[in-house]
């Protein structure tokens, strides 16, 4: 294999969890709910998937359980933000902090460990399914957003919830569905980390990927294909850092910060303007 192919393959692997989480974030944010909780959702999914796989021996069961966990945690975020009009960023932050703690605590009770699950045998790891799924989800997401009634409603409530409301769309229900979906996708991203890319859950193993996914989402202007490209870029930077380490003269830290610097540059508007869904972050108060 040529070095470039290795690099590209590695970039795709690194991009996969980012892409899954970012697509999750896309659903939530296009519906108008900021989802800074992606990190926590990924951790919830990663831990649950690894634990259930360990007990059941089936990565598919593990994945399903991980998704369920992600949806459950997303439900907390959704209810807090939609029903109780909580500040979306604060609620997301709370969930992130919470899920730094919960898996570690549970790993202590379940596996006498501080923050790790037992290793899952190689034959019980997810095959490349999550990678395929992640990249397959890009056109699917595009289709859902642009070619289904649900997508239409989702975009409408994220841009102008009042207009959607007058057209007879139940804003709270659409938003909640979107947030739950984001929980499911972020959790798949987490599960890929724990039972796909590696074979166990390790403490804080997302290492900020939820935030990077968010950055990719903004970088990609909240659109599926652009978001995928942003994830690939970030994944490529990560892959490059891995390959270059110890080989090149460039300190690895400099390669690592490239995506972050890029994101800031994008936000500063140097590369076209990135317009957020107009109602993003604004709780919708039904009039009745």
């Amino acid at each position: 294999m040529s070095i470039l192919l290795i690099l590209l393959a590695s970039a795709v692997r690194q991009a996969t969890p980012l892409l899954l989480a970012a697509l999750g974030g896309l659903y939530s944010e296009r519906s108008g709910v900021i989802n800074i909780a992606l990190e926590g959702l990924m951790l919830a999914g990663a831990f649950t998937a690894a634990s259930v796989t360990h007990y059941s021996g089936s990565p598919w069961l593990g994945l399903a359980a991980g998704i369920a966990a992600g949806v459950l945690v997303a439900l907390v975020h959704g209810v807090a933000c939609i029903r109780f009009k909580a500040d979306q960023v604060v609620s997301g932050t709370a969930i992130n902090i919470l899920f730094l703690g919960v898996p570690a605590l549970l790993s202590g009770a379940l596996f006498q460990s501080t923050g790790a699950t037992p290793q899952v045998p190689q034959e019980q790891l997810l095959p490349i399914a999550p990678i395929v799924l992640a990249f397959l989800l890009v056109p699917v997401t595009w289709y859902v957003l642009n070619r289904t009634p649900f997508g239409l409603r989702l975009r409408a409530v994220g841009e102008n919830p009042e207009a959607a409301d007058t057209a007879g769309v139940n804003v709270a229900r659409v938003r909640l569905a979107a947030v739950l979906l984001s929980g499911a996708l972020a959790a798949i991203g987490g599960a890929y980390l724990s039972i796909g890319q590696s074979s166990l859950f390790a403490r804080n193993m997302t290492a900020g990927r939820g935030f990077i996914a968010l950055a990719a989402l903004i970088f990609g202007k909240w659109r599926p294909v652009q978001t995928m490209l942003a994830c690939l870029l970030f994944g490529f930077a990560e892959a490059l850092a891995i390959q270059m380490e110890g080989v090149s003269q460039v300190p690895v830290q400099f390669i690592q910060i490239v995506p972050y610097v890029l994101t800031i540059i994008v936000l500063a508007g140097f590369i076209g303007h990135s317009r957020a869904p107009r109602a993003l972050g604004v709780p919708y108060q039904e009039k009745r």
Partner: protein
Amino acid sequence: MSFLRQLLFPLAAVAAAFAVGALVVLAVGDSPLNTYALLIGSALSWPDGIGYTLFYATPLIFTGLAVAVAFRCGLLNIGAEGQLYIAAFATAWVGIVLAGWPAWLLVPLCILTALLTGGFWAAVPGVLKARFGAHEVITTIMMNFIAVALASYFTQYHYKPPGDPILQTVPIGENAHVARIGALVPGIPERIPLNLAFPLALAACLLVYLFLWRTRWGYQIRATGANPAAALYGGIATGKQIVLAMSLSGALAGLVAVNEVLGYRYRYYDSFSAGYGFTGIAVALLGRNHPVGVILASLLFGALLRGGLFVDIFTEHVSKDLVMVLQGVIILFVAAEALFRGRGEKRVKSV
């Protein structure tokens, strides 16, 4: 009286979190009673318990204040972590490079460095927000990653003692040290790292209080946070306030360096912060973005950090992650205040 009422809600959130925590303890198979006895006992024992609780509370007061000041201007500074990292490195750098300077000059210079570096690091997202409308939550998160990577790079490639297995800089000059409380107050052993950064933190609270509520700049910052349209009407340049508030916020976060670098480790130490910047968000929320509340919340969280360590070590199953769970639940309850207040309308913050 109204002060007591202010306290009521955070207390309820804390109580609720402890109740949830008790369930978690039960679920992992330990006794909540013993766990909480160990937690509280170790946090309040004399002198180590109290000493460490105050020591852990110190950086939280700084970051809590930092988050609170930004919040008062309507900004969520998630970047306190990066600001304190970069400030800690810069402070150590001055302490190393100017090690020969006399203490009366070097210590203030180091503190100034902490303030300026932290302030600068936060001013960048401030300018991006004021000038381009870039959301500060995202930019500060990005700045966090950059700060940690930069500090790590300089430490690894330029300031690490040769052959040291640990990623840390060479020590700062003795003249840059800030005295430990134990060296000044009899009865407190000097091994307890509580140092003059603690009274500095209390002084910072007082100054922030005076700044926010007794000066024009403070007033303008708060007016901008409370209602930007009305602030503009009143002739307040809101963009300037955003930059000012972020800079001040970053400067306060930077002061963590005084506690960690000048008063405790006497060097920059990679990953020295146990998430102080993020805990600062919880501290500010729980303390209702008020300096007095920040002190109280910091003491609580400082006690949780100290107690969490003992719970971690000396119980069978419970780890110190219990503290994260408690923090997360507290913030969640504070965030969904409406949960307790019925379905009241909340002030809507637009992005």
